[in-house]
């Protein structure tokens, strides 16, 4: 029987997905090298609003994502203690129409296993005095806030401790392929300026919105739509709980308190090149307007920063806004298209990165004929500072 | 990424004399260092002058006459300014060192500068009276 240490896996992409995958594979005993073009988490991962999803947002329309979220939410609390602001979240109904959505929302949450507590207007305002006083009803869910960079750093730190090699500022120039089999990557180390080949038994493409570009290097097509959204941070922490709008997913339907800031998210459109993201002025204005509907003082708070981030959504090329695309993830074994030794993992979200990694590592191990289970549900992660100390 | 390989990028003692682009607290810090060194230099000069006492009253009287020249008066003015600033700012630093940092520390520096100016003007007035 083959030993895990006999195999070397190269992961392309140092976001949450790549980080969790490096951790999972290293824990199973495989040799792992992760390469990332820039600093780790510099692509999409670091830019999200910092929500530890309860899954409530997807409970009605996208139950698969919702189930993943709530399951991972509880696992992350266990394996990454000290990383979250665990103040729960509220879904607030402001209009009659919002209130009419309540039964469907509760039903969806129930079906996905998301714990809920319905709160009256008075109860909601006692928890969050800055809420729009016109709030009609609110639902409490186990949302939380995370530091978007530090959680993946904990995965990477633990991976490094288990022998994984993490190489930021190392860009993939070419995916090496011979007779239909991928056997490594050619990279340029932007610190030393050197080019080198890194050989691998399996190369995993975890490049998020850039995964289409990486897949194109071996001539396979990944149905990935880079779907940017605008986020706005305003000065001041105006709530302690995450505030969501109780209605179907739309623009500006969430406020995530984060340290001394409040983050309002988000919009959604689709682009071809994730390296050229615009920051449309009207989207920024919309965030203030929509955020202000839930928490009026947020709509009037001074702007701290506005930025765009590209989600790596899986879906058909003809998608237009990205809202119709599922937030779940997909793992492609490109052997199905005649390319051996090459796997793409994409879609998903920071909250579900561990689960995505488990599924992907299972695929990798199956390809290598290994039968080692994932242990990432139990192993408590090292602190983020360890990433820099190891 | 071991730091033995990294490039040593620190301003060194230049940071003590270069307050460009910095806040008022930093200017106060630089002034404090400069006046501190100035006072040490003056102390050495002062000891050197006292040596004249050993040469008898005539040498001393001659020195006192020079010391009353306009040039020396200007130098005395500069000395007094440095002395007053260093002293008052030193009191401010002691105050800060007991945790009394206000939200806008720049105000303390402005206060020090104001007091320095007042005391210096009073001191210069007294000095000119004595000389006359």
């Amino acid at each position, binding site marked *: 029987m083959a030993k895990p240490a006999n195999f070397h896996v190269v992961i392309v992409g140092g976001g949450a997905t790549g980080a969790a995958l490096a951790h999972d594979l290293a824990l199973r005993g495989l040799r792992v090298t992760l390469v990332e073009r820039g600093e780790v988490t510099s692509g999409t991962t670091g830019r999200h609003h910092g929500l530890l999803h309860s899954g409530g947002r997807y409970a009605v329309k996208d139950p698969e994502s919702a189930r993943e979220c709530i399951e991972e939410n509880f696992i992350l609390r266990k394996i990454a203690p000290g990383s979250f602001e665990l103040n729960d979240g509220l879904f607030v109904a402001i209009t009659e129409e919002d209130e009419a959505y309540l039964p469907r929302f509760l039903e969806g949450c129930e079906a996905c296993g998301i714990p809920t507590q319905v709160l009256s207007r008075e109860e909601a305002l006692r928890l969050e005095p800055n809420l729009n006083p016109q709030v009609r009803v609110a639902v409490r869910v186990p949302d939380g806030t995370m530091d978007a960079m530090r959680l993946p750093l904990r995965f990477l730190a633990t991976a490094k401790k288990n022998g994984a090699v993490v190489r930021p500022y190392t860009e993939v120039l070419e995916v090496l392929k011979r007779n239909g089999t991928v056997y490594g990557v050619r990279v340029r180390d932007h610190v030393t300026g050197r080019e080198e080949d890194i050989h691998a038994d399996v190369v995993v493409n975890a490049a998020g919105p850039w995964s289409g570009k990486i897949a194109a290097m071996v001539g396979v097509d990944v149905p990935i739509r880079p779907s940017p959204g605008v986020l706005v941070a305003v000065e001041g*922490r105006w709530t302690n709980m995450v505030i969501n709008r109780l209605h179907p997913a739309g623009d500006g339907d969430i406020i995530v308190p984060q340290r001394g800031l409040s983050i309002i998210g988000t919009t959604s459109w689709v682009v071809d090149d994730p390296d050229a993201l615009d920051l449309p002025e009207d989207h920024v204005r919309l965030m203030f307007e929509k955020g202000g509907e839930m928490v009026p003082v947020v709509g009037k708070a001074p702007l701290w920063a506005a930025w765009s981030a590209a989600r790596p959504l899986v879906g058909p090329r003809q998608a237009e806004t990205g809202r119709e695309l599922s937030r779940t993830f997909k793992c492609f074994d490109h052997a199905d298209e005649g390319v051996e030794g090459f796997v793409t993992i994409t879609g998903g979200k920071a909250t579900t990165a561990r689960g995505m990694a488990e599924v992907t590592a299972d695929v990798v191990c199956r390809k290598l004929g290994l039968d080692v289970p994932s242990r990432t549900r139990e192993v408590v992660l090292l602190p983020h500072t360890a990433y820099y100390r190891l | 990424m071991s730091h033995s390989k990294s490039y040593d990028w620190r301003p060194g003692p230049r940071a003590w004399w270069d307050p460009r682009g910095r806040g008022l607290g930093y200017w106060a810090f630089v002034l404090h260092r400069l006046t501190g060194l100035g006072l040490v230099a003056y102390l050495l000069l002062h000891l050197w002058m006292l040596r004249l006492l050993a040469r008898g009253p005539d040498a001393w009287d001659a020195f006192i006459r020079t010391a009353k020249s306009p040039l020396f008066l200007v130098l005395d003015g500069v000395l007094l300014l440095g002395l007053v600033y260093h002293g008052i700012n030193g009191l401010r630093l002691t105050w800060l060192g007991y945790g009394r940092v206000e939200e806008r520390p720049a105000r303390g520096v402005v206060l020090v500068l104001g007091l320095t100016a007042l005391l210096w003007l009073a001191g210069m007035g007294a000095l000119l009276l004595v000389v006359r």
Partner: protein
Amino acid sequence: MGLKRVFRVFRYKPGWSRPRYETYTLDLPEWATVLEALMRIRRDHAPDLTLRHSCLHGSCGTCGMRINGREALACLVKVQDLPERITVEPLYNLGVVSDLVVDMPAFYEKFEPVGRPLIRRSEYLPQAVPPEGIPHFTRLESCIECGLCVSACPVAATDEAYLGPAALAAAWRVVEEPRDARVWQALALADSPHGCWRCHLALECSEVCPTGVKPGHAIAALRAYLLTSQAVRTASPMGEAS
């Protein structure tokens, strides 16, 4: 496109005897930040330009650098607020690994031993009542470990062993709100020869801090605590045992 700016960017790679500055002229949209400009320089002109960035809103603390001689998070500095020529350099006092990337291990070497827990009691909205099951609202500590304060500090400029404003501010947080951290350990570090007594209270660290930690204020508070409370003696391990 409306903003034309000339960027002088510090470049350094291992093996070079000294850094050099390269100049890039950019046409930027109105909303562009210095970080956006640097990302475009990397995309369009210098693919080997290394820099750190992640969150783009001053929350991760990776894009700290010296912009026209002053420490800032590049993602929070709007290009339109700057003059036509913009000089970008790495942070001082940590050592440069490559271009704008400084040696963060050097930062954490001093920061980590303080042992500050990351989650604190939220001080916002004191009138808010937390829901059942949550004893009190919490939030992440304000310090984002960006290193701006260490770069702006004139003492760190000459004393390599100085604990530095970030670590001392973290020590003060341990004293202020110990949670399960070892207070005596934080105080012993602060009271060491390279601790809070080295500070000369220029308070530039408080000026450049992007998240309101105000390390200079914290250092002054530490000194006062050590001066007035016999803190080290009572908080020492022996004191704890007795």
